[in-house]
C-alpha cells in the first residue's frame, strides 16, 4: 500500500519514469525497503487504470508518468489520515520465547543470545547514523525507526528476563490438583 503512495508522493514533485521512481523511493527511505522494478511498473499500471497518474506521452518508450488531480487528492487524504495498525504482525521472536517459557528450553540463554544479536544490529544502525548526511532528514528518520525498534526489542527482552527470573508463584489449589488427578483434568478442560 505504501508503495502506491510513495510513488504518488514522488510524482507530486515532478513527472518521472519507472526506474527514476524506484531509485528515488529507495533513496528517501534509506534503502530499507528495496523495490523491484516489476513492482513499480505494476503499481504504475494500477495507478494509471484508476486515473491517479497518466503517461505524459503514450508513444514514448520511457513511459514517463505525471500525477493527476485525482492522484493529488488521494495523496492528500493518505497524508492526513493516521495509519491504523489493527492486527499485530506475526512475531517469530515472541512465538519462540512463549514456547521456550512453556517448555524446558533455557529461556535465559535464548534471551541473552537474542539480546546480543539485536544489540549488534543496533550498533550497526548507530554506525549508519553516524555516517549519514546530517541534512538528510528522511534518511535519518528511517534509521531512527530501526534504532528505536531495536531498542524496544532489547527493553522487552530485559523485561522478559525479569519475568522469567521471578520465583514461580504458587497457587492455593495446586496441592489439590496433585492429590486429585481427576479434578485437575476437569480444571484443565475448563
Amino acid at each position: 500500500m505504501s508503495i502506491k503512495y510513495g510513488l504518488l508522493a514522488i510524482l507530486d514533485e515532478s513527472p518521472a519514469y519507472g526506474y527514476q521512481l524506484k531509485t528515488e523511493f529507495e533513496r528517501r527511505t534509506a534503502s530499507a525497503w528495496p523495490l523491484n522494478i516489476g513492482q513499480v511498473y505494476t503499481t504504475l499500471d494500477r495507478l494509471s487504470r484508476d486515473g491517479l497518474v497518466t503517461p505524459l506521452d503514450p508513444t514514448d518508450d520511457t513511459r514517463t508518468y505525471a500525477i493527476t488531480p485525482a492522484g493529488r487528492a488521494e495523496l492528500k487524504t493518505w497524508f492526513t489520515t493516521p495509519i491504523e495498525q489493527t492486527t499485530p504482525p506475526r512475531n517469530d521472536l515472541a512465538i519462540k520465547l512463549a514456547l521456550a517459557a512453556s517448555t524446558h528450553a533455557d529461556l535465559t540463554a535464548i534471551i541473552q543470545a537474542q539480546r546480543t544479536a539485536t544489540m549488534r544490529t543496533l550498533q550497526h544502525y548507530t554506525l549508519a547514523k553516524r555516517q549519514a548526511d546530517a541534512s538528510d532528514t528522511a534518511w535519518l528518520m528511517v534509521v531512527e525507526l530501526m534504532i528505536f525498534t531495536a531498542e524496544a526489542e532489547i527493553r522487552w527482552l530485559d523485561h522478559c528476563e525479569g519475568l522469567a527470573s521471578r520465583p514461580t508463584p504458587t497457587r492455593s489449589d495446586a496441592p489439590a490438583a496433585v492429590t486429585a488427578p481427576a479434578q485437575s483434568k476437569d480444571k484443565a478442560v475448563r
Partner: protein
Amino acid sequence: MSVLQLDAVTRIYGAGASEVRALDDVTLTVDEGDFVAIMGPSGSGKSTLLAIAGGLDQGWTGSVTVAGHPLQGLKRDALARLRRRHVGYVFQDYNLVPTLNVIENVALPLELDRTDPSWARQSARAALKRLGIADLAGRRLDQISGGQRQRVAIARAIVGDRKLVLADEPTGALDSATGDDVMQRLRLLADDGVAVVLVTHEARHAGWADRIVFLRDGRVVDSTRVANDPAVLLAGA
C-alpha cells in the same frame, strides 16, 4: 596500548550468609580509542566495575592497572593523584561546582593538581574547544542547558589530555536527542584516542560503543564488538 586492565577482579560485600559478590572474576582490557559500554540489570555490578576502574573502591582482589600504573597497594593520596592525572568521570547529574563558571569547572582538576593556573586555563579552553563549547567559557552553570552542562563535564573529564573517561549513566537526565549529542561527543573522543567506558541501561546509547559488555550477578556473560563496516545493514532490514 591498554589504558585500563582488569584481571580476575572480584569484589565481595558483606560476609557469611549476607555475602554479595558484586563482581566475580571479571577480566576486561580497554585500549586507547576503545569505546566500551557496560550493560546489565540493576545490581549486576556495573557501577562497582566503574568505581574499581577509577580507584574509588579498594576492597577488591585481582589486578587493576590504569595507564600502566597498578592500583594495588596505592595509598589514598597516590590514588587521588593518579585519578586526577589519568581518569576523568562523567556522571548523570554532572557533578559540576555551581559557584564556579564553565572554564573554572573544567580547569579545576588541574588546579587541584597544582598545575600552573595559566596553563590550567589554557588546557581548559582547549578541552572546551574539543567539545565544541569554547563560547560558553565565561558562562555560569545556571545560564546553560542540561546538554551543555554534560558537555562541560566531559571537557572536565579530558582536561590535561587524560586518556580514560569513565561515564556513569551520563544521559540519564537528558532527552533522547540531547543524549545522542552527548554520545556523539564521547564517540568523537574515542575516535581521537581517548578510552571511554560507559555504564548505561539504555541500549540506544550503548549502540555508540565499539564493544558492549553484559554483566549479570557480577560476571561477564557476553561481549559484542561491532564491525567497522556498516554495509551489512539496512538492506533486508
